[in-house]
């Protein structure tokens, strides 16, 4: 704007350096915090959208989540879109475990409704599977996955298993001979055989009509609907009651970690927000200070400019420019370094506002006061 203004600034290096440093440091801090908050907000968003709140069906006392021997009345309720929990659930994991043997070798035969049911098939836990069959886990066919080692051996063949449904410790119900076609392999231990849950359910029906499932886990579709799910589940699957002696099952929604993390993130975000406001206010104060110190003792010069015919408003702009150009440069640099141009701009505005208020008085001093001062 004015070469002379810049010369005057450069010839008062200490004040200029002070202004540059104060502006730069505070602006950097603000941008840093803004980045931090954006990061927290991203984490919160990620938590809200991607955190899997697991819901587990247990006995009424909440002691046991496996070997539930739950009937299809419950599993149907969970999958029912209209009258059950279907509209709230995602990734429903039913499992049914059998004991099986081929001649003298013992096997665990597990029916699973999707690969997330077991860590051996779940990629997120280092497991996995491979099969040519489309919708393997949704199939009702008598097919199975064996470990990689046995897959080599039995690939494409049908294995014959003697299957038993273990019922408690003492009792077990024989399902009988089961033929399963080996259609792929899983990345887990050798004694595991996985089959589709629906096929396993068919095996159960050889013994009883309805008892079909050992574990029931599902994930909430919408993390914000915890209370709705509890309400919808109330009649069939009430909340856990440790003192209960009634038979039946309960639903536990494991949202503690989710809630705690969410609360912590929200608190962090709020705190950072306060800090951001505080620093903006401090930026305003720093601007005021810079303006105050920068114009201190300069009134005579301003009056001189006015007597030479500089308009009041132009003087105001000139002084503002003199006092702000260094902070502006600092903010531009910080904005680029921190990739936060908008935050840096906000800081600059606060800073400039402080300066603006500080310079109003010295700038509007009447030029004739200069004459007065002489006498």
């Amino acid at each position, binding site marked *: 704007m*004015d070469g*002379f203004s810049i*010369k*005057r600034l450069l*010839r*008062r290096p200490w004040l200029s350096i002070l202004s540059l440093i104060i502006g730069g440091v505070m602006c950097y801090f603000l941008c840093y915090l803004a980045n931090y908050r954006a990061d927290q907000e991203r984490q919160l968003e990620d938590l809200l959208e991607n955190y899997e709140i697991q819901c587990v069906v247990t006995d009424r006392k909440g002691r046991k989540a496996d070997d539930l021997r739950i009937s299809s009345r419950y599993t149907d309720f969970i999958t029912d879109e209209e009258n059950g929990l279907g509209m709230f659930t995602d990734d429903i994991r039913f499992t049914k475990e059998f004991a099986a043997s081929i001649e003298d070798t013992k096997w665990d035969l597990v029916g699973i409704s999707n690969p997330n049911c077991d860590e051996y098939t779940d990629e997120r836990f280092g497991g996995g599977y491979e099969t040519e069959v489309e919708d393997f886990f949704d199939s009702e066919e008598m097919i199975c996955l064996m470990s990689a080692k046995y897959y080599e051996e039995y690939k494409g063949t049908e294995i014959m298993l003697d299957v038993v449904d273990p019922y408690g410790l003492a009792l077990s119900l024989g399902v009988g001979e089961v033929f399963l076609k080996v259609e792929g392999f899983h990345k887990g231990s050798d004694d595991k055989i996985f089959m589709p849950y629906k096929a396993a359910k068919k095996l159960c029906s050889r013994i009883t009509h309805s008892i079909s499932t050992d574990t029931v886990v599902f994930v909430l579709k919408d993390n914000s609907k915890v209370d709705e799910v509890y309400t919808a589940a109330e009649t069939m699957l009430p909340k856990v009651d440790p003192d209960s002696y009634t038979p039946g099952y309960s639903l536990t929604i494991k949202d503690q970690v989710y809630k705690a993390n969410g609360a912590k993130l929200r608190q962090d975000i709020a705190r950072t927000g306060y800090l951001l406001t505080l620093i903006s206010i401090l930026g305003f104060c720093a601007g005021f200070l810079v303006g105050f110190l920068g114009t201190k003792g300069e009134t*005579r*010069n301003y009056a*001189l400019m*006015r*007597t*030479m*015919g*500089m*308009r*009041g408003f132009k003087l105001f702009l000139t002084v503002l420019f003199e006092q702000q150009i260094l902070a502006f440069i600092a903010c531009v640099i910080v904005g680029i370094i921190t990739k936060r141009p908008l935050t840096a701009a906000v800081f600059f505005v606060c800073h400039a506002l402080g300066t603006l208020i500080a310079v109003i008085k010295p700038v509007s001093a*009447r*030029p*004739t006061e*200069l*004459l007065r001062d*002489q*006498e």
Partner: protein
Amino acid sequence: MEILRAEDLSFTYKNKYQTVNAVKNVTCGFEKGKAYAIVGKSGSGKTTLLSVLAGLEVPTEGKVLFDGQDLSKLNRDTYRRDHAAVIYQSYNLFPLLTVMENARYSMRLKGIKGEAAAKRAEQELDAVGIKKEQYRRFPPQLSGGEQQRVAIARALAAGNEIILADEPTGNLDVANSELVVNMLLELAHKDGRCVIVVTHDLDLAERMDAIYTMCDGIMTMENTLK
């Protein structure tokens, strides 16, 4: 030809505690090519009159005519920038700008920059006897007389035809006073500008073309010497 004229001019300082009628119904005229002295004892309203003539204060009553036009109808900032330069007893220069930069300042306000401005400033500094090696000095490194001469050079460079000086020699020794006074006279007589000097120094006043005497805000005597 009258370039500046005060007509029935009054100025009153008003604040919470008091009202001071510093200038009362002053009527007087100033011509181009002449140097005027305004004398009077302390507090008689000389500085106030000068401020009003410079457009730094707005008259309470009456008017100032510049080239026949009422000053209140003109922009006073532009009037000072283009036509009327004010020189004070001291502190006429920006301490953080060099002599050269100071001399160029009022041209800069008028939008004259670069080579043209440099040449013009050099010419005027030369005319007031500032040497080339002093151009890069800062005002505190100059004597009081030199400072006043730089201020005069600045007014000359900007082409202001009215020079209003408030005790320009107040801080100077005899030799320097002499230099400055000669310069002001030269401005009037050779350059054809209108020079108005407020002073206590009656010897100085007597060298001017006309003397106005003020007493308690009233112009009591109009004495044309030459």
